[in-house]
């Protein structure tokens, strides 16, 4: 279970959110919605240990995760709004790099898994392209595939369907359902109401549920 308690974040004097409380159960799919610039990305970056919070607590299954930027655990998988693919690696290398080097997965196994994910996302034929050769929606899907390949227990998506057509959106929706079946906790930032309704158990609305 993921518990966020009294989390506060400021950029200089600009308070993004104050005393934010949020609990997400294992295997739950939570949509995070709210207008642009309200702090959704900031929240999941703090959750992933990429940003510091000014105060507050994050508890994962009862253990406290520090929010002061000293975390190096990769407990939360993250799909970035701007992808952050590694330009020097091909699609398949982007996906298999972490499993091979961090999880020490066998190369052949890692490639097989990556191919499976790419197939699910309709991207198998792009496996050997470099990021600069991809369209926007293709980059989005590589970013998703890269995060999935690490089998994280908590996975946060930042606008995963932006740039995706209906078919690809549906494919991502299917993935969310599959992972839910495997008990993965998922947080999905999205402006796509239809998608949010389709996949999520619950909606967290930044506009109404967060203090500033």
């Amino acid at each position: 279970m993921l518990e966020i308690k009294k989390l506060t974040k400021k950029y200089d004097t600009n308070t993004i959110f104050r005393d934010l409380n949020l609990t997400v159960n294992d295997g739950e799919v939570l949509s995070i919605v709210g207008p642009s610039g309200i702090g959704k990305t900031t929240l999941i970056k703090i959750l992933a240990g990429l940003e510091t919070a000014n105060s507050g607590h994050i508890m994962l299954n009862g253990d406290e995760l520090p929010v002061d930027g000293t975390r190096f655990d990769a407990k939360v998988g993250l799909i970035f709004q701007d992808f952050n693919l590694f330009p020097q690696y091909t699609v398949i290398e982007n996906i298999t790099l972490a499993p091979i080097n961090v999880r020490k997965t066998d190369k052949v196994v890692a490639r097989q898994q990556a191919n499976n994910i790419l197939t699910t996302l309709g991207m198998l034929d792009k496996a050997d392209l470099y990021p600069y050769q991809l369209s926007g929606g293709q980059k989005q899907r590589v970013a998703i595939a890269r995060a999935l390949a690490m089998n994280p227990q908590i996975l946060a998506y930042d606008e995963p369907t932006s740039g995706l057509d209906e078919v690809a959106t549906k494919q991502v929706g299917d993935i969310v359902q599959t992972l839910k079946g495997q008990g993965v906790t998922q947080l999905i930032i999205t402006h796509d109401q239809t998608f949010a309704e389709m996949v999520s158990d619950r909606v967290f609305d930044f506009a109404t549920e967060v203090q500033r």
Partner: protein
Amino acid sequence: MNYLMEILPSLLAGLKMTLGVFFLTIIGSVPLGIIVSLGMKSPYFTIRWIINGYIWIMRGTPLLLQLIFVYYGLGMIGITFPRFEAAVIAFIINYAAYLAEIFRGGLQSMPRGQYDAAKVLGFNKFQTFFKIILPQVIKIIVPSFGNEVINLVKDTSLVYVIGLGDILRAGNIAASRDVTLLPYLLVGLIYLLMTAIVTVALRRSEKRLNIWR
């Protein structure tokens, strides 16, 4: 022409010294430079302070004086190295300072998103640096790195100051013995050849890095 043939053997003997210092310096200063550039981002003030001081001294004094210091200066206080070893040590610690600044520039231009992506995928600092960051940094710094490598080719001639005979010294000797500038011409051509090899090798590696953007 005949005369050039006559002095060529002595020049080539000097060339051996030049190449020895050159390769050992590259091998030693690149890793040291990387470590130093990382040290400059250390959270500990003392480490940053020491490293900045080191870079300042290394870049701030002529390599010639550093050679003199390592060989004669340390010799006076009882730390003696053989001439060749002293030269290589002085060159490595000097060039590492320059390379560290170049690496630092490359590191600075890495977008933060690359570090973020590596972190959420669980890469440790070591892996992040060598698998994600360094390949991108290398691509940016190849031309500046080339400048230093080519400077090194020529700086090797400074070893004369601690009594080692490199190619330029061989040329000097011939020039003043025979009262002609011709040996310098030949030395110049040999330097040009070495530089051409370095330049072409680096351009090749740049091309290879250009399959991605």
